[in-house]
């Protein structure tokens, strides 16, 4: 790939598992290079000493490898041709189709000026009450699923992506199993949505460090469609824990002092740079939005680990899945799940009683949890406790389960009917102006 004018270096002075060092001049920070055809990026320059991070790993690189600097940071060619295509982490087609023609943009570009953003205000309906009712999503939001690896987060995410009315769905797969990759392909294909899909894939078969490019690739494509085509773009990133693991591999190889859980000290900034690409643009620049739904897998539900912890501080809420032992169904956990932007739409784009009804139901569901503890500890239950437990069962089955598909109005009506079935007016603590309308009517 070297052209006539490019200088070729052939003396590598140091090779570690992830990096190569050599003496070179006139090299820019972040610049790409090819080492015997393998893609690498400049991560450190000290005088003439240049350190390169090799995405595929350094196995098989000889000390006399040919090194050519490309004079540019990692980039992606963007155009309408991206739609419907599958790429690897470098943005090269893996679906057998032709190369993309278009303008080349550097990935990991600058941030949007906060004053040029618009406050997100468009509801994204998913039909899942655990989301729409309790944790409403809004366009321009960034939110992850916190889930253990055995939970069906990819299925839920595919469902959400298909039901959300997005112009483009961009899937960034990091360390995804081949089976899951095929699941997404088939699901989108069966739904007839392939023309709206763009995927950047790093599967478990690919080198781990490569996946560091995936979120930036996906978001560069997203920015093209949101900024230039003013489209509503939904970006799915799964799994961000694999991404963070790769960060820690690289920082470890570069002898950086690790902070909590052997993650690099810059983990917060690294994750924020990705998630903050979520944006709603105002009409004055033509609209368009990028919404990010990600997956952060947990280890044994531990959210104090550095990856979910830092993620929680960056994202606008988080969604937890768990299996409800009462009903045997997978539910969206109403206690730990949170959508920080829900108040921008709840009661504004939805019915006015939304916030109060939601809170009342969750409070009573919490009382049911207390009653359950009492039951497990062998205490007698009161009549109220029993009613809470019955309510919780039906609430989980009819609303929290992920197989529910209702519109928000129906969700509210179902909640009112459950409240009335099990509780007295003074037990629900809802503003009188709403009980006047809905109590006894639903």
């Amino acid at each position: 790939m070297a052209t006539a004018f490019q200088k070729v270096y052939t003396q590598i002075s140091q090779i570690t598992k992830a990096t190569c060092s050599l003496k070179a001049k006139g090299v820019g920070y972040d610049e790409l290079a090819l080492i015997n055809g393998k893609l690498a990026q400049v991560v450190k320059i000290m005088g003439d000493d240049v350190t390169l991070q090799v995405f595929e790993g350094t196995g098989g690189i000889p000390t006399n490898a040919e090194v050519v600097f490309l004079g540019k940071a990692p980039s992606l060619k963007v155009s309408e041709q991206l739609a419907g295509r599958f790429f690897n982490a470098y943005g090269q087609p893996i679906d057998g189709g032709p190369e993309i023609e278009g303008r080349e943009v550097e990935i990991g570009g600058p941030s949007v000026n906060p004053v040029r953003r618009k406050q997100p205000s468009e509801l994204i309906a998913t039909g899942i009450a655990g989301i729409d009712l309790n944790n409403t999503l809004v366009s321009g939001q960034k939110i992850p699923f916190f889930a253990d690896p055995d939970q069906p987060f990819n299925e839920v995410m595919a469902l959400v992506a298909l039901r959300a009315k997005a112009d483009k769905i961009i899937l960034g797969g990091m360390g995804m199993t081949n089976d899951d990759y095929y699941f997404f392909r088939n699901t989108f294909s069966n739904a007839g949505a392939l023309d709206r899909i763009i995927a950047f894939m790093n599967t478990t078969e690919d080198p781990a460090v490569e996946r560091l490019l995936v979120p930036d690739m996906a978001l560069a494509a997203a920015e093209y469609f949101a900024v230039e085509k003013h489209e509503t773009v939904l970006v799915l990133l799964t799994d961000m824990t694999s991404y963070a693991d790769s960060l820690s591999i690289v920082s470890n190889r570069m002898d950086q002092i690790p902070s909590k859980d052997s993650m690099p000290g810059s983990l917060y900034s690294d994750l924020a740079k990705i998630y903050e690409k979520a944006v709603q643009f105002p009409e004055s620049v033509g609209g368009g939005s990028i919404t990010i739904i990600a997956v952060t897998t947990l280890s044994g539900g531990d959210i104090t680990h550095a990856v979910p912890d830092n993620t929680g501080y960056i994202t606008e809420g988080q969604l937890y899945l768990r299996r409800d032992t009462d009903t045997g169904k997978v539910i969206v956990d109403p206690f730990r799940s949170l959508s920080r932007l829900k108040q921008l739409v709840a009661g504004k784009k939805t019915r006015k009683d939304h916030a109060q009804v939601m809170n009342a139901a969750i409070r009573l569901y919490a009382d049911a949890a207390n009653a359950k503890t009492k039951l497990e500890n062998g205490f007698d239950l009161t009549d109220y406790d029993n009613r809470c437990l019955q309510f919780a069962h039906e609430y989980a089955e009819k609303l929290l389960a992920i197989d529910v598909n209702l519109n928000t109005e129906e969700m509210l009506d179902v909640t009112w009917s459950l409240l009335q079935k099990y509780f007295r007016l003074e037990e629900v603590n809802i503003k009188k102006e709403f009980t006047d309308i809905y109590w006894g009517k639903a």
Partner: protein
Amino acid sequence: MTKGTVSGVVSNMVTLRVDGPVLQGEICYIHTGGVRLMAEVIKVLGQDVYVQVFESTRGLKVGAEAEFTGHMLEIQLGPGMLSKNYDGLQNDLDEMEGVFLKRGQYTDPLDNDRLWVFKPLAKPGDVVQESDWLGEVEENHQPLKIMAPFQLKGKATVKSIVPEGEYHVRDVVAVLTDEQGNDVNVTMVQHWPVKFAMTNYAEKPRPFKLLETGVRTIDTFNPIVEGGTGFIPGPFGTGKTVLQHAISKQAEADIVIIAACGERANEVVEIFSEFPELVDPHTGRKLMERTIIIANTSNMPVAAREASVYTAMTMAEYYRSMGLRVLLMADSTSRWAQALREMSNRMEELPGPDAFPMDLGALISNFYGRAGYVILRNGQTGSVTFLGTVSPAGGNLKEPVTENTKKVARCFYGLEQDRADKKRYPAVNPIDSYSKYLEYPEFAQYMQEHINAEWIPKVLRLKTRMQRGKEIAEQINILGDDGVPVEYHITFWKSEVIDFVILQQDAFDEVDSVTSLERQEEILNLVTDICNKDDYHFETFLDVTDFFKKLINLCKQMNYSEYKSEAYYDYIRQVKELVGM
């Protein structure tokens, strides 16, 4: 001026080889690809200078040239800053071109074309010192003072001062003669290096005046004072930002400065979009008029994040020197500490606890120390009240940022996951949180003079009841509802009344979100009366539960009703009837 050449790049840490003297903390500009990147000196080793660049270093090459400025990171202070949105380096975000932030784009923080009505306060012949008031300019109904230059040494005499009229910020409005007989031109613009505290006051006594925030769990339970310090630690999702926004909307301050430090951009957008519409409950004017936002969101360059809190504090001190009451909020100080950690790591310094730099504690305490209530040399008073949030890793308060902050901040508002899960907002833990000001005799005297002498004793008694309620709840958990006497249930439910009626507050309800001090006093008295009544008679604990649920429901409806409305009085009547008072 000293010049340098780039000799190494690791992310935003760059080494330069210099040809002359440099200051520790000096600002320099590195030229690359047609733009200038601002950077700050953080370490000097012989001719090698380590700088942290406030921008992305992508494409920067060895050999790029840098020019030094001879001064540390400083900001410009003058009329025209109110209602502005700045980045951490005081660039005016609204003046920046394009949707994306372009590297190397720096804008003037003050509007040079705008005319201000200047009124002289000093006259020729007056002897003045640095920071003394020479004139006045009104901005958004705030009387801003034009002061003698902060850098003025010793005493000076006013040689001339312009008459009342319209002037630009950089016009000379006065000429002083200093002790050496040199003329000093005075404009409306001041400069100040952000890392240094302003000490241009006569005295810094203990603060004692209540700062009303309209948030009951603060004002009633753990009050903060004008010039006081406090911090809000909490795991994510417990409502730190909602609480901070509520305080910044409602607090009785002249100027509110919000430093969004390494936090979400959409939260800043919320302020941008809501504050211009919202009305200041104390003056009836638009909230934005008294607000300045310093936005360094989490995706903006890390080095500027550290600068942003200092920029905000320097602005706060500037307004305090004019005798104004300033409220400064920083969300979140943990992000600032993380920025320090990233840089310390790149410099390969030996790490302290959790890989934070060793001087973290000293930096935090110096920063909180800059807040305070001051008496100026002319006898006027001003204050900087500082509230910072802390985002402890994993929600664990035993981590360096929380521990070091706890040593210096006087109020502690600990947000609790368990309360947040139960939707008991604001999720401030009523038992662990504290305000040291409740112990200040100066504060007790102020409350006695301005509200009543019974306020603090009543609050302390309610706090004891909360503690007792918690103990009983634990006993009931162990022994079961039937395992404790009915009286225990009554005591427990009294603490629930305090929790539901005083502590819990709906930040998204138009009425409930702000409670005036007068109304808080009425609620405090009502709840105290409910708790003090000791002749409740119930057969079983179930009757206790039923009764108090009914009572709490009525009290909540009262909280949702417009103050002094018919509905409000009606609910009070119903409460009293139910209780039999």
